[in-house]
């Protein structure tokens, strides 16, 4: 009885492990400076060059940090200090017409140069901030979200 319970637990853990590994990546970290982190499942880890990025990752920088990333559709995105940016949705499978990227910027500065998703899907790229939604059509732009100072 006890042995079968242990086996089931192991199988369960193994299944979770492999399915997580099988998730497609959204991109990777190209460069890092100062305090730069990736928050995944609420765990904050220091970001390193070549780190893989997944959907739902949050890019976080401290007072003196910045980070540049390349996404799977060859768009590039970079953030300055005191920034919090979540990759809330990323799907890039042109053969299945899955072309979608949504980022949420809570605060900070960000620059984005669009790639294939914006090129192939007019409504595919969206940036959300606390006070606005940006629909992107093949372009290069910057967003600054300033939190209210009290």
């Amino acid at each position: 009885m006890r042995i079968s319970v242990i086996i089931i637990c192991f199988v369960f853990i193994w299944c979770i492990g492999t399915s997580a590994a099988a998730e497609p990546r959204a991109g990777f970290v190209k460069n890092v400076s100062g305090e730069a982190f990736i928050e995944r499942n609420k765990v904050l880890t220091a970001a390193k060059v070549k780190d893989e990025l997944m959907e739902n990752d949050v890019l976080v920088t401290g007072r003196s940090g910045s980070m540049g990333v390349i996404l799977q559709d060859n768009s590039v995105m970079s953030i300055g200090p005191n920034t919090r940016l979540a990759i809330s949705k990323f799907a890039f499978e042109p053969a299945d017409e899955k072309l979608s990227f949504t980022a949420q910027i809570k605060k900070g500065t960000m620059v984005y140069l669009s790639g294939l998703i914006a090129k192939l899907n007019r409504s595919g790229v969206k940036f959300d901030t606390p006070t606005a939604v940006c629909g992107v059509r093949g372009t290069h732009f910057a967003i600054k979200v300033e939190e209210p100072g009290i």
Partner: protein
Amino acid sequence: MRIKKIMLHLVLLVILLSGCASTTQVVILPDPDGKVGTLEVSNVKGTQTLNQPWQATESASMDKAPSEPNILEEKQVRQVFREALEAQPIQPVSFIIYFRKDSSALSQESIALLTKVMDEIHARKSTDIIISGYTDAVGSVDYDRRLSLQRAKAVADILVAKGIDRKNIQITYHGKSNPLIPTPDGVPEPRNRRVEITVR
């Protein structure tokens, strides 16, 4: 007593208002090749469209539409976004190398093109190079899969011989799938006999 009460309420109100919302500023930047795209900035109260370089709009609350776009000074924009701009990676670049039918040999022009590929790899200190092989629709599925892999490998081998770490190269092969120019099966098309190289 009453004045104090009013002042307290006023102070609370001010705090509430300033605590209400962040300010979002959105600025269009010119593309590396000088062109400019389009951006729509919306909140529940309205939308602004940006389509000129350095054009910007602000959304400071959910009660007012984003502001009328105005053109900002380039110098100021570069100052506000300095760190993010400095951290911006060079956009990935792609190359195509073509092949004669049934062949995975590179022409002289192709080999010369690989010098440009090397330059781009070095400029980016790239550790992510994707080499994808393809064929046209002539040949069996199996034959074309093998040929497309041979083509990709031929290109990868040259880059490795020129000093690129094989660990940084990812090879994919597609046989006759994903043609650049769709054709019926069995129809030759030189533009599909190719290898695509993406340098990130």
